[in-house]
């Protein structure tokens, strides 16, 4: 099979490629692997220093591990995928340390430090991953409150214990994983507070039996927790974090089994210096939004997700979305979705006939069907309940960047705001550097709770390029406006955010 030539245009950092994959996590790597196997050359960019994304993140290149067995199953899965990528050959041009800051039609703007450029991609796979769902409660901005993903990254790849004594709270199997990792790192974990409660009906058991391997992960983590003497408390959560400058204590207690409303009269205070919070994940949809893809709100997938076909095609021709960024379902699902996206991109580029493409898509599609049954069971345990929005008090910070309180958001509601966009204009909510990533998901639920409607009716805070900080110099060098004059050639970094 003939390999497509990658055309590199020297002028102004512009480059033309047949396929650009954005995101080097499980979905992006799998898409690149399948495309390259079919002979379609692809460029793979990721913001991180190496490939792997969050879950398969590598240790820093300068670190040496004496015994890799201790690094766990996720590490082994990540290594296997990286080996597959290496074996897929020279058709993959991997560029870590590269942030995509905007998409204009088929032009994708990237920044790497003070360097920048534009890639014109005939096809685009967006595999941008997800981030920890922010849930506001009093004290959640104190240093010492970390997301589950953040704490895991520190312990796993930096090998630093972020505190001495910790409470882990939220929902989902990741809590068990993080609690064990903290314990192994020498942190005293006082408890894991899981807001949900599993109901192991025979029907649920039947559904997950086909994915014993995945269940074994959860089972192993649970057993390790028991061995460590860390109590797992169902239908409990954190109510508040306390401390003058850092976390010194937390209040936690039971929640209503159905609604997850906090039962405050039964709250108790625990002295900890670390609070790890994980309420599931939110898909990163900034790039699918900038690419013009249609989105819909799917509660069990984490909120707004791009509308897709079973072949991972979005509503924009030539643009595919795969992995947690297109709907949170975990790394194993992400890999299979990525494979399907890569195969379909190769098919549409003319590198595979439709019969061959179907043949290649069949195994990952079968894996997805099997994994979907496990998801159903896990989703039911971790389905967010409306009572979670009651954790915040009027003084609680809603928008961490612009320091907008819940009281100010409610004030905007009283002044007639009916959606996120109106609240943004009245309060500056979502106008800071995080672009609403940390406030929009929770405030959509808060507004919906107040209005008695669904969060999808609250709209979105639109992403604006550059979605990641870039110096003015780097932006000027992007060459997006070809008719600019010499004055536009600002070479000095003059701002960190656009």
């Amino acid at each position, binding site marked *: 099979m003939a390999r497509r030539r990658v055309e590199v245009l020297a002028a102004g950092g512009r480059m033309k490629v047949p396929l650009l994959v954005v995101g080097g996590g499980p979905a992006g790597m799998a898409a690149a692997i399948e495309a390259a196997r079919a002979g379609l050359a692809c460029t793979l960019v990721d913001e991180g220093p190496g490939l792997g994304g969050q879950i398969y993140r590598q240790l820093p290149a300068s670190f040496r591990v004496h015994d890799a067995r201790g690094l766990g199953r996720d590490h082994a899965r990540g290594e296997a995928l990286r080996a597959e990528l290496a074996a897929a050959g020279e058709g993959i041009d991997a560029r870590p340390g590269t942030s995509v800051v905007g998409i204009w039609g088929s032009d994708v703007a990237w920044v790497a430090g003070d360097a920048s450029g534009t890639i014109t991609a005939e096809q685009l796979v967006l595999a941008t991953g997800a981030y920890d769902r922010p849930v506001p409660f009093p004290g959640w901005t104190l240093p010492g409150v970390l*997301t589950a*993903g953040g704490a895991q990254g520190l*312990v796993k790849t930096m*090998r630093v214990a972020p505190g001495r004594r910790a409470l882990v709270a939220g929902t989902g199997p990741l809590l068990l994983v993080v609690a064990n990792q903290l314990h192994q790192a020498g942190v005293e974990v006082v408890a894991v507070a899981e807001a949900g409660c599993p109901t192991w009906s025979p029907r649920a058991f039947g559904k997950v039996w086909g994915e014993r391997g995945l269940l074994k992960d959860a089972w192993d983590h649970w057993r390790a927790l028991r061995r460590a003497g860390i109590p797992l408390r169902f239908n409990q959560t954190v109510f508040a974090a306390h401390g003058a400058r850092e976390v010194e204590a937390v209040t936690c207690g039971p929640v209503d089994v159905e609604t997850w409303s906090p039962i405050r009269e039964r709250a108790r205070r625990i002295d900890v210096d670390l609070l790890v919070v994980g309420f599931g994940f939110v898909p990163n949809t900034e790039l699918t939004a900038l690419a013009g893809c249609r989105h819909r709100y799917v509660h069990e997938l984490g909120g707004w997700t791009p509308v897709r076909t079973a072949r991972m095609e979005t509503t924009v021709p030539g643009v595919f979305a795969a992995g947690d960024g297109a709907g949170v379902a975990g790394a194993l699902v992400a890999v299979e979705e990525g494979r399907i996206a890569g195969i379909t991109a190769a098919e549409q580029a003319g590198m595979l006939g439709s019969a061959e493409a179907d043949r290649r898509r069949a195994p990952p599609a079968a894996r997805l069907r099997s994994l979907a049954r496990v998801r159903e069971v896990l989703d039911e345990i971790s389905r967010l309940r409306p009572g979670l929005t009651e954790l915040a008090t009027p003084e609680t910070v809603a928008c961490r960047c612009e320091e907008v309180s819940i009281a100010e958001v409610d004030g905007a509601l009283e002044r007639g705001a009916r959606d996120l966009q109106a609240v943004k204009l009245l309060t500056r909510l979502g106008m800071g550097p995080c672009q609403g990533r940390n406030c929009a998901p929770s405030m959509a639920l808060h507004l919906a709770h107040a209005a008695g409607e669904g969060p999808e009716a609250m709209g979105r805070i639109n992403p604006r390029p550059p979605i990641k900080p870039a110096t003015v110099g780097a932006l000027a060098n992007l060459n997006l406006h070809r008719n600019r004059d010499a004055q536009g050639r600002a070479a000095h970094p*003059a701002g960190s955010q656009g």
Partner: protein
Amino acid sequence: MRMEHQQASEPMDRRVEDGLQRGRAVEIVVDGLPVRAFEGESVAAALLAAGTRVLRTTARHGAPRGLYCGIGLCFECVMTVDRRPNVRTCQTPVRDGMQVETQQGEGRWPDAASRSWRRAGA
């Protein structure tokens, strides 16, 4: 304002030492005080290892903030690094001799840089 880094009298090290060889030992300077770090670590990780968790104070209320998301999305961990404000320390690897400052509010660019920028006529 100078933050406490709890390292002069009783050096704190929260690094996990198990079957791992870190990169070369380096030293970064945080608010004028030396802090030990290892190549490959992020600035945020090196600071947490030294027990420093307040990385900045906010513009509106002067509230303390620290590492939160750890993956470069929330911008809570920004500090002034080598005189450049709003640098995400969870995404920035340490470098020997790096100058890190606890950031107050939105931070500021050094005057010298803005002067030379003006001189350049950009």
